[in-house]
């Protein structure tokens, strides 16, 4: 295993540190809370000559992603970062990056979308981009944010994939939360990510290429099918790279992580930093003899539905915790709930646990262990009585 240094870093600085070690050719970014610290820290690395990266300050996030697309099409290794409204402003260009099969890696420090204006964490920003064709990975803490950033490069650039990756963490909670982070040596990271050789490059003047040509009803459809094919190969690649990274760092990564799930009667499914809080609750309740487990998805897009069904099919009731609302969806539920329900319908052979959704933490509303404990008690009542009082509930909401 490679040598590592323990540092006190918040999630944003941990990502900036990973970016310094990766040393991409181009970073084009526009600052927005709570992502600012990534751009600020990384541009300082550029100014101090610690990295040989072309840093492009741009006038908006739309311009940031456009510059990233141009640079990536030219054959460069490209990274950026954003959050919330900035991600929303990129919407058009997100689809272009994915459709042109450009392996850009973007750190997203999750923040609620306006209005009302809010700078704190929820997942509405990246969930709004879940159909854009990007790979999406969520981190629980600064350590995972660091580790995922490094792995994202390899996932994006894998010859079977060639798709952009969004690497998420929770705004302020981990983005501005200083924690213990084990950092690999620069050389180890450089070796792990390797040199990037683009499949096609705009700067290949000996064999000129056209990027962004049009394709109508004669060909457009076929290119969309290619994208779904590439996404279907992502889980396998994420697993392989997670294992290889584990051999390097001692920290192994998979599509999801399960805790006390094998004999669980009820299960919590939740993304990102709240999974840590939920694990504390599960540990406490297990000591009281309650059979509760936890599943934390890491890969969210493509959604590893088959694998999640396999891991969860034995439980009686699942409580999904959604940190955003898929407005207008059934019962006003969240996207994680929708994906899990669809997965059970598709892969569950017509059977499956009861699934209840709990919307929580919107706009940075704190989620306490007692609230999660209350939720588990409710799941146990459902398991016992078979009666589901409501399909979508709310944690920490004032009536």
């Amino acid at each position, binding site marked *: 295993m490679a040598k590592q240094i323990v540092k006190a870093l918040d999630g944003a600085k941990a990502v900036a540190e990973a970016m310094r070690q990766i040393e991409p050719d181009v970073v084009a970014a526009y600052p927005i809370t709570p992502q600012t610290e990534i751009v600020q820290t990384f541009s300082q690395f550029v100014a101090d000559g610690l990295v040989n990266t072309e840093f492009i300050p741009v006038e908006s996030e739309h311009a940031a992603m456009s510059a990233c697309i141009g640079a990536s099409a030219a054959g460069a290794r490209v990274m950026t970062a954003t959050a919330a409204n900035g991600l929303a402003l990129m919407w058009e260009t997100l689809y272009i990056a994915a*459709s042109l*099969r*450009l392996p850009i890696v973007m750190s997203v420090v999750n923040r609620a979308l306006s209005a009302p204006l809010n700078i704190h964490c929820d997942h509405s920003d990246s969930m709004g981009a879940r159909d854009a064709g990007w790979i999406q990975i969520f981190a629980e803490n600064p350590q995972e944010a660091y580790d995922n950033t490094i792995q994202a490069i390899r996932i994006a650039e894998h010859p079977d994939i060639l798709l952009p990756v969004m690497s998420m963490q929770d705004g302020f909670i981990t983005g501005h939360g200083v924690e213990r982070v084990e950092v690999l040596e620069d050389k180890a990271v450089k070796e792990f990510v390797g040199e990037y050789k683009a499949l096609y490059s705009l700067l290949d003047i000996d*064999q*000129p290429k056209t990027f*962004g*040509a049009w394709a109508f009803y004669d*060909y457009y459809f076929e290119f969309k099918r290619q994208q779904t*094919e590439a996404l279907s190969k992502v889980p396998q690649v994420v697993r392989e790279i997670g294992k290889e990274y584990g051999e390097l760092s001692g920290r192994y990564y998979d599509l999801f992580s399960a805790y006390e799930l094998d004999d669980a009667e009820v299960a919590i499914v939740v993304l990102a930093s709240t999974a840590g809080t939920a694990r504390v609750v599960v540990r406490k309740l297990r000591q009281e003899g309650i059979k509760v487990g936890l599943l934390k998805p890491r890969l969210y897009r493509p959604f590893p539905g088959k694998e999640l069904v396999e891991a969860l099919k034995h439980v009686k009731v699942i409580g999904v915790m959604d940190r955003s609302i898929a407005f207008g969806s059934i019962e006003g539920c969240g996207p994680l709930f929708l994906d899990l329900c669809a997965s059970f319908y598709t892969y569950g052979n017509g059977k499956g646990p009861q699934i209840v959704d709990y919307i929580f933490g919107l706009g940075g509303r704190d989620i306490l262990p007692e609230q999660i404990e209350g939720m588990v008690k409710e799941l146990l009542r459902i398991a016992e009585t078979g009666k589901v009082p409501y399909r979508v509930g709310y944690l920490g909401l004032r009536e």
Partner: protein
Amino acid sequence: MAELKGWKELPLGAVVLEPGSSAEYITGTWRSRRPVRDEEKCTHCMICWVYCPDSAVIVKDGKVQGFDYDHCKGCGICAHECPVKVEAHAVTGKPGKVIQMVEEV
């Protein structure tokens, strides 16, 4: 028309790998009027060549040879910009400029 390819055969990201392949697309069929040139009176000033948005003025050894009717869309810019006046055009017989537009037949 060539047979359309299936999704497994196409280059990733709709990247066009063959340079200059847009020449294979015949846009001359869009034309309803075509430019004609009075070869005798043409001074080869190259103004039409400079202005043509489709690179459809054929030039060889500094002399205008004619038009690439496979790609000329008949926009008329060459005729509008042509600076050389004639009293009777060799093709149309009309007074005007060395390049004039006629109906496509």
